[in-house]
């Protein structure tokens, strides 16, 4: 375990995030001779997709599947590469001078980078249905995390709801682990099929379709899959029933656990706070950073690799990490030997193939992204859809102004679970594009830290002189 005091004051490359992009980037850069540190806030490396890869108690290889175990090679390469890998490390600031603020076990440090690669990946798209704050309602990703990292599986009446590849994968993994799933409530619109057709040829050339069909067959053989148009969780103090509308009639399912998922979106908080320009992506319905061919952002020296650069999945993330790392090596140590970038780019193009089809076919329906009435939008400050809509109607034009009225986005999650919803609701009320509405203005610290942690920063001569007479 590396403590804050053990860190060097400066590194050639700082990689933030230990998923596939971060691991691949750190390995490549360290092998090329850059002094490299990787910071990750989780107890172990792997990110979400390879969560618990070095420590999982789930030794039966078929439960998590071979795509999961592919992450083991990335983790061992990174370990052998000479990069310092620091887990339990929370990055709370990154500024355009490439100073990185880090906190480890309650002690903070500022570390200087020659280059930074942000590899903070994705998070699950907010899924604001009535009752989604009740204990007993979690994300599908949460159930997958605790299966991978702790070998914990749902034990009561379990219902899955939403859409997207991860939902099918989780269902298959839970079934293989012996879990009974009461139902899978499918929320994507059948109309998506027509819109997705033009992207079908590329999809059929990608590895996704064979895997996807296999998963769907495996799940449908064991679980009723029900198309739904409305969804709610009800219960007093904890989940009791899942209420849904299918084909015009309302039904109820007793449930102990409801797992929600309708896609993942880039985790933008650190990149936006560092000043990297982002734009609205209508196909993926989220904000993505503006990047050059080497994944360099609008802030010189800061690259954004992996799903943080726009959703493309774990294997594409690793290739993106390599491309960003090659650019860092070329900038800082041009004489070092690196893999040929065009080979990596070809691999990346293959991995990204088929993504457009998935984006369109699993595009979450408007009604599941833009709630109404007293459905909570901001979980931290308990702000409802009706409040956001009414405030927009009063003339509140954007999410930052909305903070002043309602405090939405001002709780500890810093907008991670409400940002896209608030933007889309305002856009709908104003009848403009989310691009025009924009996103929360994010500022450091991007994770809450205590004054005691800030006060633990080492004090140099300059700081002392600034306050002493």
């Amino acid at each position: 375990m590396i403590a804050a005091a053990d860190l060097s004051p400066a590194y050639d490359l700082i990689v933030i995030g230990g998923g596939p992009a971060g691991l691949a980037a750190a390995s490549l850069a360290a092998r090329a001779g850059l002094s490299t540190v990787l910071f990750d806030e989780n107890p172990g490396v792997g990110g979400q997709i390879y969560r618990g890869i070095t420590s999982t108690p789930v030794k039966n290889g078929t439960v998590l599947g071979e795509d999961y175990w592919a992450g083991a090679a990335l983790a061992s390469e990174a370990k052998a590469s000479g990069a310092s890998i620091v887990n339990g490390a929370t990055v709370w600031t990154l500024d355009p001078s490439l100073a990185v603020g880090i906190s480890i076990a309650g002690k903070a440090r500022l570390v200087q980078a020659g280059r930074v690669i942000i590899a903070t990946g994705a998070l699950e798209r907010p899924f604001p249905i009535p009752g989604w704050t009740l204990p007993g309602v979690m994300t599908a990703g949460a159930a997958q995390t605790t299966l991978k990292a702790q070998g914990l599986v749902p034990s009561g009446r379990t219902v899955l709801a939403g859409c997207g590849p991860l939902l099918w994968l989780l269902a298959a993994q839970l079934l293989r682990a012996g879990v009974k799933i009461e139902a899978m409530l499918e929320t994507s619109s059948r109309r998506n099929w027509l819109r997705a057709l033009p992207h079908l040829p590329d999809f059929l050339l990608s590895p996704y379709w064979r895997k996807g069909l296999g998963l769907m067959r495996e799940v449908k053989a064991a679980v009723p899959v029900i198309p739904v148009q409305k969804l709610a969780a009800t219960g007093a103090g904890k989940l009791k029933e899942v209420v849904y509308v299918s084909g015009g009639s309302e039904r109820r399912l007793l449930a102990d656990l409801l797992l929600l998922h309708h896609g993942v979106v880039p985790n933008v908080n650190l990149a936006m706070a560092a000043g990297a320009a982002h734009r609205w992506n209508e196909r993926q319905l989220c904000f993505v950073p503006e990047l050059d061919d080497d994944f360099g952002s609008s802030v010189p020296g800061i690259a954004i690799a992996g799903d943080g650069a726009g959703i493309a999945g774990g294997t594409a993330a690793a290739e993106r990490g390599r491309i960003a790392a090659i650019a860092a090596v070329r900038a800082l140590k041009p004489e070092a030997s690196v893999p040929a970038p065009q080979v990596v780019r070809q691999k990346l193009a293959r991995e990204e193939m088929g993504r457009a089809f998935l984006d369109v076919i699993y595009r979450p329906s408007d009604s599941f992204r833009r709630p109404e009435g007293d459905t909570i939008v901001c979980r931290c400050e308990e702000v409802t859809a009706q409040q956001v809509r009414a405030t927009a109607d009063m003339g509140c034009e954007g999410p930052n102004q909305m903070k002043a009225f309602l405090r939405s986005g001002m709780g500890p999650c810093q907008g991670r679970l409400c940002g896209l919803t608030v933007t889309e609701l305002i856009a709908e009320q104003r009848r403009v594009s989310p691009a025009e509405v924009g996103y929360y203005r994010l500022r450091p610290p991007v994770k809450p830290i205590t004054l005691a942690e800030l006060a633990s920063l080492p004090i140099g001569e300059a700081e002392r002189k600034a306050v002493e007479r």
Partner: protein
Amino acid sequence: MFKRLHDTPTVTIKVNGQTVRARSGDTVAAALLAAGIDHCRTTPVTGAPRAPYCLMGVCFDCLVTIDGIGNRQGCLVPVREGMEVATQVGKREAGR
């Protein structure tokens, strides 16, 4: 809500003074879920109960007091023998 696939618990922690057995490798949030503890905090706004939602460090619904320090993200902190966890009522209390 959750059960363990196979491992036997090996670490002992206290949750609100009660002994809870956890597995080395659990996060605090996972240990609470495995022990069947149905919520880990109440909200500062309405006092509604909340349980871990995302388990990946973004939702902050698993905030608990750990060894006297409030507002810790239970899903990011590994359990340690003898750790004292308390569910959090409303906002973080002054002094912890």
